[in-house]
């Protein structure tokens, strides 16, 4: 019997995401297999339950009104310094890092100007290689931007001496290249202290700052 092969497909089957040929195979199996049929039945019941119980409440009218009012202003108010922005500029790929990667934009005008300053906040090194790639793409797209990378907590790992990415390449090379293009790298001193690392453990390209959080304020 094909349970081992079919069972993982049941979710996609329920969601209508399987190609036609596979759908046929799944349905053929379901005709013969009570256990898988029961699984599908449970998934359907769960869906119905969710849709009944978690029905979206409408956005409060006041919120809608605030949004419309905000649009009226000729120049959108500049975000306060602490606001964190995700820049959706063309050329930036894979903002999958969003959970770990925050852009803070400190421009004082409402539009993206070449002199814009971007702060990349890195709190986890899991995606450090991808961060650096994204940053490179960003610079390629808009060479005149000023970028500061602030690393804290686990995000400092890629800025430590000897750090390598998972292809074995030293991070120092990419960091050096970006430094040449004017990117500022800053490592949170609080994190170093907390992790009992000496200042010498950090790549020379990166500057130490007392607190990574204050940097993005």
């Amino acid at each position, binding site marked *: 019997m094909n349970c081992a092969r079919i069972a*993982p497909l049941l*979710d*996609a089957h329920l*969601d209508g*995401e399987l190609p036609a040929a596979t759908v046929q195979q799944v349905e053929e199996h379901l005709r013969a297999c009570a*256990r898988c049929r*029961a699984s599908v*039945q*449970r*998934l359907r*019941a*769960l*869906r119905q*339950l*969710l*849709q*009944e*119980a*978690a*029905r*979206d*409440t*409408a*956005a*409060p009218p006041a*919120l*809608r009104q*605030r*949004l419309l009012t*905000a*649009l009226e202003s000729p120049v*959108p108010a500049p975000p306060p310094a602490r*606001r*964190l*922005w*995700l820049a*959706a*500029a*063309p050329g930036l790929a*894979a*903002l*999958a*890092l*969003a*959970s*770990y990667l*925050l852009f803070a934009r400190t421009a004082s005008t*409402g*539009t993206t100007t070449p002199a814009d300053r971007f702060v990349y906040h890195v*709190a*986890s090194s899991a995606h450090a290689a991808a961060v650096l790639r994204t940053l490179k793409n960003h610079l390629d797209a808009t060479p005149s931007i000023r970028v500061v990378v602030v690393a804290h*907590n686990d995000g400092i790992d890629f800025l430590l001496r000897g750090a390598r990415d998972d292809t074995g390449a030293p991070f120092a090379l990419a960091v050096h290249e970006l430094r040449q293009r004017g990117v500022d790298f800053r490592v949170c001193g609080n994190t170093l202290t907390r992790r009992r690392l000496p200042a010498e453990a950090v790549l020379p390209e990166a500057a130490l700052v007392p607190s990574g*959080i204050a940097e993005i304020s």
Partner: protein
Amino acid sequence: MADRARFERLLLPHLDAAYGLARWLLRDDALAEDAVQEAFLRAWRFLGSLRGEDGKPWLLKIVRNACFELMHRERLAAGRTDLDDARVDDDGAQVGTALVLPLDPLAAAIEHADHAAVRGALRALPAVYREALVLRELQGCSYKQIAAITGVPIGTVMSRLSRARRALQWQLAERMRADAARR
């Protein structure tokens, strides 16, 4: 202004969906309002980069990102360093959730669950599971759209969704078991 008209046609109709997603991700109405406001402002500013006529996935991606930023900021403010409320291992086995679930208690849990229990169970899931379920079951997004919104490959969407559903069933069964034990 053409932009304003476009905004109202392509984005404003999805305000409720945006608010719903934000509420489930942030689990706090006030934060959700902040996130939605921030998201719509960004959407307005970057409206030029929206291609085509379907504003919903594009908008939800902005909302989703604004929510995670807010979550992160709130955690930093509270002095915590963990980035998510529970570890979710996308590649390996599920962490903290039974892989093999006995069938009968599950079926019973689903059959007898009341709405409050379901909402509580959903709230208790890790953020990336909650997000997968909300986008799929409540917002009707396709796998491809969910992948675009959450910024992960379709394979990851599929495995998260599948695990999320199992985790939800498990949560429901646990709650039912705990309730029964209390009586």
